[in-house]
């Protein structure tokens, strides 16, 4: 990847996809496109990509530091040759149509030649005012880069403020400062556009009742994130802005500017604030002091994502976060202390309550920027009433203009995993407008030739990250470094800040060159996530990538032992010693590759599976779509209408017809999976099909699990005993098929969270609140006089479905809140159903005679199916039986087993629109994998020393995959293309003739030597 500041006038023969917005969504979309062999231009008006996420301290539900999780992705983008990154660039014009647009892009001057800038920081040190960015609260961040791992890692000069350009140029030893840099314009031929421009967070300064932006200790959620962040203005210390003292009582106020009817409010729900407030509260207690009181004032707790309810329970039960259901109406500051009084009322108490806090965090939601509205106008796409990009339920990432797709918050408010899913989906759609370039070989190997280090004695460089405060906040990194610096063969030992940041990487490269290092030890986070990054670093300096060892100082030391810092430091030293002694024995190795099978197996023929199949077929892949049911359609066949009024039945019928008619899709119904083998890119799955259960084997390179979920039907509230009690799904068909019957009902009671959010099935089913509202509105439309009561715990009409919640209230639907420990009671006397519940507003129990009681039973995992498949495929599941993605945040459709993807309700409960989105995303991710013509098997394969081999056959018999054989020369031979790298043969070989590369015995023993301080 090169940053392009020069004029680019691409010939139309090589069209590209334009991705607008360099946040996590845009990066994901661009990466997916580049991986699937499409050329991409990624533009962002900021001067480094990363977006909002890089400003966050930690993300839920894992409470990881975002910088650490996102930076490998950013660096990944840094090595994609098909990607042009254009920071400080905006779109000024677009002409043409889908498949053949011409866009005009304008790049603002940076005044720095990024190809020369080494990000040394000298310019800022000397002239801090001449830099531009204001991250978070402090106008002058410790560095002038937006965050330490910024890509590209170059500075930008604010020419407006520069008084003496010559002086500035003089401090730059790299001669990178350009005095006469000018804006540049480029026209590019593109096939499609992905819009991932995000949104800004609401500025609460306009709200008088919350201090109007004047109160020092009232901050927004994002400001609070910056305060907590290790790269933030307080260097990771949690202190009050007014006096720099750590607060003892912190309050969060939810829905600030959202779900409101007041001036400056928006009516929709911003979807993410409940979770981020909970996260900030937990992290506050976890990282700073468990005795800090954390109180959240909320309207409804909307923790309806995958496993989010568990997170809510953790916040309440394990961390003691106070949750007060209320809407505070004012904050008053004590001018002496800077403390803040919050006045609020609750359902239960009619009088005003007041409580004093040291600090108040306003959970502000998303707003579309004015510049985005302008961009939409320029692009010619329609916006919805809230000024977000308009999409349809059955085409969730398509804007009103063909060829322009949208993902992320600009489509609707959403969190990171949903953004990632949508980004992959949008990339998949945008990619379909542009043929995959299979003729072009994958240009990857422009690394310099490898230096032969075989004759050299080990020269080791040890580089230890402090990972912000995650490592450096627990152990004295410099002391630990000093303690290992004296070990033999260690030439350099240094602490490098964020090891994965651009400048640190550069520093390491420089040290390797300078000292002629031939072995490198990195102390930082888990090699599971960061090994590739540092392996690439070695390749860049001409060293074999297997000459580096990553010592897991964070995940397996400082994180786990933060309560015992002295012991953690000792352990860090020992782990580093192990790394050093181990890496001395490492050898240069060559990776092995195999061709990829281009077929895809889609399991599950519901809406999700069919969409994924169609999309893959569209992209030109052969699809096997299997379902154990006799017909396609899945659960959606029992849904008639979406909340927006879309006709689901007609949609399904059309979808089935398209799938059946597509000659690239082989549909196999009544089919079950019986066996599975192979490796990513080369799987073989055995299925039995049809009434005779005929066996056949499917060869495929990847698979999408879209097995769906089951409608829940718990035996509660007389369900199944009384005909007047039904589920929302039942009601859906009554309304559609027997409207006259429904019209005659006088009173209908709906009960939410039946069989969800309680012991046994602790998670939220996500879809039921909107479904209840949808059906309530449909009933009201049939007969406005029907009285409808919705008994609920929290109304979770996230995003724009909040509109329908408001509409339902206006239509006279009554909402009565109940508690888990005081559930409503449904009884039947003389054929009359009655529902009794405590009305918290009235403060007494009410009894409602009901013609129908409708239970919102939601979904539960198809436990049997997922268990069977998990066993067959060796993939993981959550505790409640849904498939588990590889990374809940950043890889929500990939599974840990490479080549496997999940989509739809097999992942977690979701509505049709969300399921389709994930289906497209899975298809996109799968094609990115299949676009690779070869699959890298790595170098971790077993190797036989023919001289030692006794041809005893132990390996031949021990290998779980039957790979070794005794060759014509009379010794065991292991085909590297077939070896899975488990090492069983190496462990069993009685002649010790087999070594598993990268895990050789001498390396393992050397690590033990390092641990026990027997260095030789």
């Amino acid at each position: 990847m090169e940053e392009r500041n020069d004029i680019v006038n691409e010939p139309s023969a090589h069209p590209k996809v334009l991705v607008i917005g360099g946040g996590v969504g845009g990066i994901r979309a661009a990466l997916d496109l580049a991986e699937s062999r499409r050329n991409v231009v990624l533009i962002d008006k900021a001067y480094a990509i990363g977006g909002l996420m890089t400003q966050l301290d930690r993300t839920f539900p894992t409470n990881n530091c975002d910088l650490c999780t996102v930076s490998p992705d950013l660096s990944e983008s840094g090595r994609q040759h098909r990607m042009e990154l254009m920071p400080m660039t905006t779109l000024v014009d677009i002409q043409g149509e889908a498949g053949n647009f011409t866009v005009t892009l304008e790049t603002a001057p940076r005044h720095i030649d990024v190809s020369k800038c080494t990000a040394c920081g000298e310019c800022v040190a000397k002239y801090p005012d001449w830099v531009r960015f204001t991250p978070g609260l402090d106008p002058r961040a410790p560095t002038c880069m937006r965050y330490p791992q910024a890509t590209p890692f170059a500075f930008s000069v604010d020419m407006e403020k520069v008084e003496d350009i010559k002086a500035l140029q003089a401090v730059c030893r790299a001669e990178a400062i350009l005095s006469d840099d000018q804006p540049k314009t480029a026209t590019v031929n593109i096939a499609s556009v992905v819009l991932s421009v995000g949104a800004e967070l609401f500025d609460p300064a306009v709200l008088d009742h919350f201090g109007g932006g004047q109160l020092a200790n009232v901050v927004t959620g994002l400001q609070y994130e910056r305060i907590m962040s290790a790269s933030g203005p307080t260097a990771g210390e949690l202190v009050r802005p007014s006096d720099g003292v750590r607060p003892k009582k912190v309050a969060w106020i939810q829905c600030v500017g959202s779900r409101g009817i007041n001036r400056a409010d928006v009516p929709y729900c911003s979807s993410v604030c409940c979770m981020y407030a909970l996260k900030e509260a937990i992290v506050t207690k976890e990282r700073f002091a468990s005795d800090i009181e954390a109180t959240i004032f909320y309207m409804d707790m909307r923790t309806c994502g995958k496993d989010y309810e568990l997170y809510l329970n953790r916040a309440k039960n394990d961390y003691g976060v106070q949750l007060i259901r209320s809407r505070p109406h004012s904050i008053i500051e004590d001018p002496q202390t800077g403390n803040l009084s919050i006045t609020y009322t609750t359902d239960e108490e009619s009088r005003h309550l007041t409580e004093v806090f040291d600090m108040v965090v306003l959970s502000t939601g998303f707003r579309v920027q004015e510049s985005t509205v302008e961009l939409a106008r320029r692009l010619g796409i329609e916006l919805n009433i809230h000024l977000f990009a308009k999409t349809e339920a059955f085409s969730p990432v398509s804007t009103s203009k063909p060829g322009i797709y949208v993902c992320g918050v600009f489509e609707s408010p959403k969190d990171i995993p949903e953004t990632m899913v949508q980004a992959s989906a949008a990339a998949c759609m945008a990619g379909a407008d542009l043929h995959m370039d299979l003729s072009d070989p994958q240009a990857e190997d422009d690394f310099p030739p490898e230096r032969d280090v075989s004759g050299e004695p080990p020269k080791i460089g040890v580089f230890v990250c402090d990972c912000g405060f995650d490592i450096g906040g627990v152990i004295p990194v410099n002391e630990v470094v000093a303690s290992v610096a004296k070990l033999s063969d260690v030439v350099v030992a240094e602490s490098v800040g964020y090891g994965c940041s651009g400048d640190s990487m550069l520093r390491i490269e420089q040290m390797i060159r300078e000292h002629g290092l031939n072995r490198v030890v990195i102390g930082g986070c888990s090699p599971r996530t960061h090994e590739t990054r540092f392996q690439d670093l070695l390749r860049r300096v001409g060293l074999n990538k297997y000459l580096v060892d990553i010592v897991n100082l964070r995940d397996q030391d400082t994180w786990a032992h933060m309560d015992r810092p002295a012991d953690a430091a000792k352990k860090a030293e020992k782990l580093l010693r192990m790394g050093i002694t181990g890496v001395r024995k490492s050898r240069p190795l060559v990776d092995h590759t195999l061709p990829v099978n281009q077929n895809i197996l889609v399991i599950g023929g519901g809406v999700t599976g069919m969409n994924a199949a169609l999309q893959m077929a569209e992209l030109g892949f052969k699809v096997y779509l299997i379902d154990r049911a006799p017909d396609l359609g899945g659960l959606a066949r029992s849904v008639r209408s979406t909340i927006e009024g879309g006709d689901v039945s007609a949609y399904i019928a059309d979808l089935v017809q398209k799938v059946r008619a597509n000659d690239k899709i082989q549909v196999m119904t009544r089919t079950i999976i019986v066996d599975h083998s192979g490796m990513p890119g080369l799987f073989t799955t055995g299925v039995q099909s049809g009434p005779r259960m005929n066996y056949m084997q499917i060869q495929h390179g990847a698979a999408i699990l879209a097995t769906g979920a089951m409608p829940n039907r718990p035996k509660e509230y007389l369900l199944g005993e009384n005909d007047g009690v039904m589920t929302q799904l039942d009601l859906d068909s009554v309304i559609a098929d027997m409207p006259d019957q429904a019209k005659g009902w006088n009173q209908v009671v709906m009960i939410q969270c039946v069989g969800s959010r309680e012991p046994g099935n602790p998670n939220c089913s996500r879809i039921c609140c909107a479904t209840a509202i949808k059906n309530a509105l449909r009933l009201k439309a049939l007969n406005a006089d029907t009285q409808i009561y919705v008994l609920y715990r929290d109304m979770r009409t996230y995003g724009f479905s909040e509109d329908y919640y408001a509409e339902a209230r206006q239509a006279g639907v009554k909402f009565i809140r109940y508690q888990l420990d005081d559930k409503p009671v449904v009884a039947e006397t003389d054929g009359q159903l009655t529902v009794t519940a405590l009305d918290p507003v009235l403060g007494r129990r009410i009894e409602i005679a009901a013609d129908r009681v409708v239970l919102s039973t939601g979904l539960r995992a198809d436990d049997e199916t997922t268990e069977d498949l998990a066993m067959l495929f060796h993939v993981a599941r959550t505790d409640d039986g849904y498939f588990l993605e590889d990374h809940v945040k950043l890889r929500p459709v990939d599974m840990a087993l490479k080549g496997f993807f999940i989509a739809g309700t097999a992942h977690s409960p979701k509505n049709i629109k969300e399921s389709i989105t994930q289906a497209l995303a899975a298809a996109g991710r799968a094609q990115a994998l299949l676009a690779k013509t070869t699959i890298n098997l790595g170098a971790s394969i077993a190797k036989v020393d023919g001289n030692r081999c006794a041809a005893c056959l132990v390996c031949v018999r021990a290998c779980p995959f039957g790979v070794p054989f005794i060759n014509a020369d009379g010794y065991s031979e292991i085909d590297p293309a077939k070896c899975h790298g488990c090492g069983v043969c190496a462990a069993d070989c009685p002649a010790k003739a087999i070594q598993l590369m990268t895990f050789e015995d001498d390396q393992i023993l050397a690590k033990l030597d390092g641990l026990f301080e027997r260095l030789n």
Partner: protein
Amino acid sequence: MENFEPEIVAFCCHYCAYTAADMAGSKRLSYPPNVKIIRVPCTGKVDAIHIMKALLKGADGVYVAGCLEGDCHFKNGNIRAAHRVAYVQKMLNDIGWDGERVEMITMSAGMGERFAQTAKEFTEKIRQLGPSPAKTAAGQAAVG
């Protein structure tokens, strides 16, 4: 031996136990820092010699942590490992050591809690058993 802090080596398979250990870290689950992990692709890779050498070089306890039965990424490496650990336990008993100093543990990648819990339990067990006989015996000197 009031302040005896055992030194423990854990051979962890990449796919399950090592990931579970990372998981324990990301959940900030505390466990004894005595445990030092050596990553292996599969517990089936752990040679009986590795365990013996770890003890010889000074480990007070060694455990091998792999996937749950039936979940091995390589079909049955964890079962093989369990047999080897049993073999080493017998060998240790035969030479007058305590076979309890080595153990096979299984867990899935998502079981951060179990990783932390078993690390605690094993460390506690070794603490009860006391320092490695290699350390306590008089006249010990550096070996191998």
